[in-house]
């Protein structure tokens, strides 16, 4: 066995590009992406808590960020990611009991996850903006 042959061109296991996008698959990917986003979003939570304890000036800086257009977009996205990941987590916990794997059940759960997360996020922001006395 002096010479080593080049490895045979064996087929690779199929990856994302070979599949037709499906709702359940997209929800699985989005679950991971939202978790990834929430991870770094904890920096905003830490900033908010430290700002609240640092006095009026420090808190004003946070409020400026949270009230800016970029800040609002980030916080809106963060709200949606949080709710979506939470509902997705509930879906996973249902699966952990062995339920919800049927063809219609899993489609229904995926749709409920997406529609529920958007509905709850919009509702929370309406309540939130009303609590703040409208957009200021």
């Amino acid at each position, binding site marked *: 066995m002096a010479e080593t042959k080049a490895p045979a061109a064996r087929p690779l296991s199929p990856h994302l590009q070979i599949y037709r996008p499906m709702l359940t698959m997209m929800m699985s990917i989005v679950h991971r992406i939202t*978790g*990834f986003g929430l991870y770094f979003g*904890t920096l905003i*939570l*830490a900033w908010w808590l430290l700002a609240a*304890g640092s006095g009026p000036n420090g808190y004003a800086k946070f409020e400026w960020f949270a009230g800016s257009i970029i800040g609002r977009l980030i916080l809106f996205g963060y709200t949606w990611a949080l709710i979506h990941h939470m509902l997705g987590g509930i879906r996973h*916990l249902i699966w952990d009991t062995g339920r919800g794997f049927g063809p219609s059940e899993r489609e229904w759960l995926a749709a409920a996850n997406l529609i529920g997360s958007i509905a709850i996020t919009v509702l929370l922001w309406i309540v939130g903006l009303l609590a703040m006395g409208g957009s200021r």
Partner: protein
Amino acid sequence: MSDTPAKHIRTPLARVLGRGAARSGTEHFWRQRLTAVANIPLTIAVVTIIVMLLGRNQAAVAQILGSPLVAVVMLLFILSIIAHMRIGMQVIIEDYVHDDFAKLALIMANTFFCIAVGLASAYGIFKLSFGV
């Protein structure tokens, strides 16, 4: 006929313990579910607290966040989400980073990030509660 113990490399103890090469068994799996269950009521509580604090000035926010019940809920939330996200990010790293050095470095960085953000958040709550 049947598989005799001699055919297995693994010791009977290893098979009974059901742990793989990682030596950590199902600990991450279980802890991820434990914190996931805890995260649900804690997230609902924290989102409610945040909505109630919207539009209030710093003094009011500081007072409410530092009050015992709210502070304890916030601390529980931070503890649970940090433990949850540390495992979650480790899974992502293990799935996509295959170079051993980069993988270990990122897993380390993941732990450092989680502990730093968790402690900073907890420090914020303690400061509001005790006024230090």
